[in-house]
């Protein structure tokens, strides 16, 4: 079977399921990529998600790296096209007809109903990353520090906090073999 096509298929499915944005589709992405297709292990998924956090733009651009891991640059392209084309086409088409529903009371029901669903999916996305990323006291401290920084200090650039977490890990964990793949 052609792996490139299955990368395209998996990310196209995730694209149309990504109601509520990237964090909402994170648990399903991990389930498909790690558990169903075994393209990555838990640690690699956490690492690649981390890479997505330190670059600008949408975090879910990390799907490119997942595709690269499966079949190289063509896989990267397949993951990108798969993840962005279907949802992009839907948005493009829907925004042209959306105004026809101006004033429909169901539009607000849709928003109000989807809002808590999306928050639930984002919470699940956090849990799915935390299950691998939180391992030992230092990771708990880093997570709480970044949480406090983002939540309480509004003006701070979150990427700097994430990079700071990386530096703390580098300084305090590099002798311990943390995150190393099993031999």
């Amino acid at each position, binding site marked *: 079977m052609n792996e490139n096509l299955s990368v395209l298929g998996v990310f196209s499915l995730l694209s149309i399921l990504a109601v509520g944005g990237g964090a909402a589709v994170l648990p399903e992405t991990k389930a498909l990529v790690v558990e169903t297709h075994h393209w990555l292990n838990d640690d690699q998924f956490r690492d690649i998600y981390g890479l*997505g956090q330190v*670059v600008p733009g949408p975090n879910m651009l990390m799907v490119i790296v997942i595709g690269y891991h499966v079949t190289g640059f063509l896989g990267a392209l397949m993951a990108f096209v798969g993840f962005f084309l279907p949802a992009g086409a839907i948005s493009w088409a829907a925004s042209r007809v959306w105004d026809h529903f101006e004033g429909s009371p169901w539009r607000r029901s849709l928003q109000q109903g989807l809002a808590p669903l999306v928050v639930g*999916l*984002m919470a699940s996305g956090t849990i799915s*990353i935390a299950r691998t*990323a939180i391992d030992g006291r230092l990771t708990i401290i880093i997570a709480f520090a970044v949480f406090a920084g983002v939540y309480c200090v509004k003006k701070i650039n979150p990427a700097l906090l*994430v990079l700071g*977490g990386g*530096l703390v890990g580098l300084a305090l964990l590099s002798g311990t073999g943390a995150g190393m793949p099993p031999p």
Partner: protein
Amino acid sequence: MSPSLPPAPGAAHAADAPVAEAPAAYAVPQDVRLWDIFVTFLFIGAISFGGGVVAYLRASLVLKKGWLDEEHFLSALEIAQALPGLNATNMSIIVGDRLRGIAGAIVAFTGMTLPGGSMVLALGVAYAANAHNPYVNAALVGVGAAAVGMLSAVTLQIGHKQLGQMLNVAIIAATVLMVSFLHISLVWVLLTVGPVAVFLFRPRKDDAGTGEGETS
């Protein structure tokens, strides 16, 4: 439509016949260049970090460029959030389309994803080549832990105003239970919780005064 024609100042509204379905009340700027759209979204794509892209979009599109007013920005955001896909890329497509049709949508999307996409690919190639480097792995453990802190903060920022209402809390709890603990596929979660949630918030006759904006 012939995009090559120079815009005639003052005559923009005379030629309304060939315009497919631009809503009449919508004061879309008529003469925005594709290059300008590309550069604007490239800039947003290069400086927006950590899920805060909506703030950057608003600052750039509404305040700096004046391409949208507040009301139409929120309406575009409403569409971007209700549909599948990322808010950032959906917004680029919707706004690009309103400014210059499909070509505008394509250049806006490309600008939005080019900086982060090329950088993450470069990092990914470097990561694949250094998978057994203990320094790289130690740093990524720290980055992963920091990502958990950031994700929980963003989730709480978006969700905190819903936590006061039991119905919202119940929907959030049901979703988390199904996805994280029962491991039910997202397709089924969306197809079951979605319609139920929308039905629970269905329009009511006495619904007049409860409106608060949901857009964060």
